[in-house]
């Protein structure tokens, strides 16, 4: 099982700031998924990245998949309190039906 390292583990910022969180591994992924989990709820898929170097945008969120497909980043522009939550990356183990999750980055955006 490949290990997914997410950093930072915790991040507390003020509304309007920009931030980047990371998901790294020593192995190559066929694809990577990013989820956001709000307090008291289950995770919800934000995006799936598949191609090395791929960049996907979702409003103020920009996702990038590394050229070598070993890492990914999530950049949030002008963060808002509604962005508060746990951001999880996950990969499909060996193309199987199982997902392996990182431990997540807990983001708090203060008004």
């Amino acid at each position, binding site marked *: 099982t490949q290990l997914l390292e997410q950093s930072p583990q915790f991040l507390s910022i003020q509304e309007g700031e920009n931030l980047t969180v990371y998901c790294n591994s020593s192995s190559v992924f066929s694809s990577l998924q990013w989820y956001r989990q709000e307090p008291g709820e*289950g*995770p919800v*898929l934000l995006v799936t990245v598949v191609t090395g170097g791929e960049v996907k945008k979702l409003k103020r969120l920009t996702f990038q998949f590394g050229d070598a497909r070993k890492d990914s980043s999530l950049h949030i522009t002008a963060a808002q309190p509604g962005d508060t939550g746990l951001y*999880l990356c996950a990969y*499909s183990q060996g193309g199987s039906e199982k997902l392996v999750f*990182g431990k997540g980055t807990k983001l708090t955006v203060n008004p």
Partner: protein
Amino acid sequence: NAGVTQTPKFRILKIGQSMTLQCAQDMNHNYMYWYRQDPGMGLKLIYYSVGAGITDKGEVPNGYNVSRSTTEDFPLRLELAAPSQTSVYFCASRPGGAGQPQHFGDGTRLSIL
């Protein structure tokens, strides 16, 4: 528009008691999953199922059992509850096909005292 429904939302058990966590989905998904989420530890897979009548162990199956008699339902059974099973439990489902996202329920918060 129910999606994945988990019941109960909260439960407190005494050590040694048993209970069943219910999970139902109305999306006709073949794949279903049970995870536990401990603080700072992410999501760990307990059991999963690729279709009715088929189940398999995940990363942390000890102390749990599952069954999948229908496509819709995937209950998780705790026998002889232990304090180490205090956690938030999430059920998820997804359709077939590579890279399909998992759809999660809102979780069951379980405390064992």
